């Protein structure tokens, strides 16, 4: 697998912790959300940077109590068409104010690269042979009709930027 960096974030170097293992002291690990919820604070005391692995049907409200403890989040797509993953990233950025890395895993396709970036993802783990296609897809479009969470404002606003700036001054 290759990690494609969408935003230029310092990507986390972590491993997936097996179900029946305890974290080594100080290790960077990704674990299913359910385990973090069950084990609570004890888990965070032992491990180093901890990330939650989320299924796309995760209710964002369940993440709220963990927001100041998670270093990163992994959204695992079961299929590329499961668009709940996009809303989950939007929720993390918008409702929960999450600033850490959001990574996509699973069978997402290169043509989704810009959608992932614009929904709030930083990185995506892809099959080696698809990495170039992902990178190429990032360059396809350079203006957008929606305001998004990368700081990109919608064309509806951009078209009138000069007017808005005049008003503000």
């Amino acid at each position, binding site marked *: 697998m290759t990690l494609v960096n969408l935003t230029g974030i310092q990507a986390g170097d972590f491993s997936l912790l097996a179900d029946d293992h305890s974290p080594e002291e100080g290790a960077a690990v990704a674990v299913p959300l359910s385990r973090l919820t069950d084990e609570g604070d004890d888990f965070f005391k032992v491990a180093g940077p901890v990330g939650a692995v989320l299924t796309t049907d995760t209710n964002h409200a369940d993440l709220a109590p963990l927001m100041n403890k998670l270093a990163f989040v992994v959204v695992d797509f079961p299929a*590329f*068409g*499961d*668009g*709940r993953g*996009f*809303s989950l990233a*939007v929720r993390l950025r*918008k*409702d929960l104010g999450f600033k850490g890395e959001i990574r996509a895993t699973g069978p997402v*396709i290169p*043509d*989704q690269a*810009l*959608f992932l*970036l*614009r*929904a709030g993802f930083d990185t995506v783990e892809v099959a080696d042979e698809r990495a170039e296609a992902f990178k190429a*897809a990032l360059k*396809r*479009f*350079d*203006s*957008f*009709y*929606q*305001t*998004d969470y990368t700081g990109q*404002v*919608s*064309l*509806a*606003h*951009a*078209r*009138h930027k000069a*007017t*808005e700036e005049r008003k503000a001054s």
Partner: protein
Amino acid sequence: MYAYDKYDHALVNARVEEFRDQVNRRVKGELTEEEFRPLRLMNGLYLQLHAYMLRVAVPYGTLNGTQMRKLAHIARKYDKGYGHFTTRQNIQYNWPKLSETPDILQELADVEMHAIQTSGNCIRNVTTDQFAGATADEVADPRPYAELIRQWSTFHPEFSFLPRKFKIAITGADIDRAAVKWHDIGLVVKKNDAGEIGFEVLVGGGMGRTPVIAKTIRDFLPEKDLLSYLEAILRVYNEQGRRDNKYKARIKILVDALGADEYARQTEEEWQKIKDQPIDFPAEEAARIKAYFAPPPLQVLSDDVPAVDELAKKNFLFAAWLQNNTNQHKVPGHVNVTISLKPHGGIPGDATAEQMDLVAALADEYSQGELRISHEQNLILPHVAKKDLPAIWTDLDEAGLGIPNAGLLTDIIACPGLDYCSLANARSIPLAQQLGKRFDDFKRLQDIGPLKIKISGCINSCGHHHAGHIGILGVDRKGEENYQLLLGGSGAEDASKAAILGPGFDENGIIDAVEKVVAVYLGEREEGEEFLATYRRVGPQVFKEAVYDAR
């Protein structure tokens, strides 16, 4: 009408290049058909029974003469010389070569058209009243809002992989010609007591195997909040809509499961969180887009045109056409002309390249260069001076387009059916053709009056049979085509679901059954009463007896 700026051009051109790359990868074998499928679908390219089919968007059914000529050119150069106008106000080409589709899209981009999001589980082409901006019974022209929604929904980063396809319809008129209550979201432009523009918002309408009429979740949404409120509706749906069963994945199923009140509550809760973010269009952008839809500078003329009356007295077909195929424009002395694509014995919605060229020329000469496509699969010349009607009708009639049946029994909506579609159980087009032949008498049609027949070749109901005054549904019964008869549906402001009358029929039997239904209506109707009103008054029993007892 709207004209692209440099940003719109850049986006559509970039999309063409992206698709060209995808097709090249497919042709070279770098993409399997399975991998290519979702990519081509996002660009309106289907694989049908015999060939690829390309669905081109006509945003909210509005186009100009130049664009129509381009559609004709594409039909001639890349297809078999014709195209099919659909209930989604789009056009479909049935025989394009895969390798040529990128060139088709480039030709479309050159005239500010595209095939973006005409398929796939995303927000589809927004549809509206075919007389928008040209009808007297209108609060405001809905097309600026349709364009704002088109832009907002194009390549939406969050809502491009929904549980299922998503259709938004908007009307600004009292008479609902856009079937807004049958859409995932229906919007009705309204004015409040202070004279401000806003929208009634309905959710959860849809046809398919579970027909549902949309429910109102907000009586008046201020204009400036449109996009953030849509975003809230879509977020609730994207997160909670079912993804385990494609037949239960539309928003109507979620609205039904939660209840409309709960759906409204969750939408409101979500909307409160986002309504002040820069999601909505700024006022300057609304003004910019509205300026493109400013009413054309029509002179006020007399509605009394002796030359028109004289031709109507001499020629029964012109008189019928005048009555059925024109409707009053908001400017006196003007009308909107419906060009029927329903010749008796023909294929509903089909037009040849020559016919498209003629209609484009008529638009340039008589209708401010503007054209519309109706969800009933007809073409519209808006803003026509009444005095020009004899000349227009003569030209149309020579090209086989002067059929005076708009709104009458033979103005049939039919899906492509088993002649083209891989989902169909039965043929639809031949039924429409048979009905056209059986009722090929304009005096008789005129006497029967307004009657909408809608035919679907399978339960997915692309032919809107649930909303037909008379609906016909093709099913497969032990390997044979069988047709169910439904009565009493409506797609208008008085929306209702048609009900199955009884056991189904074979191809000949269903035509006879329609004739019997019409005979019952003619016997039961009161002075001036239309078919649907009679059916609603007398109920199904008398129709049932006539249709089944004689068997």
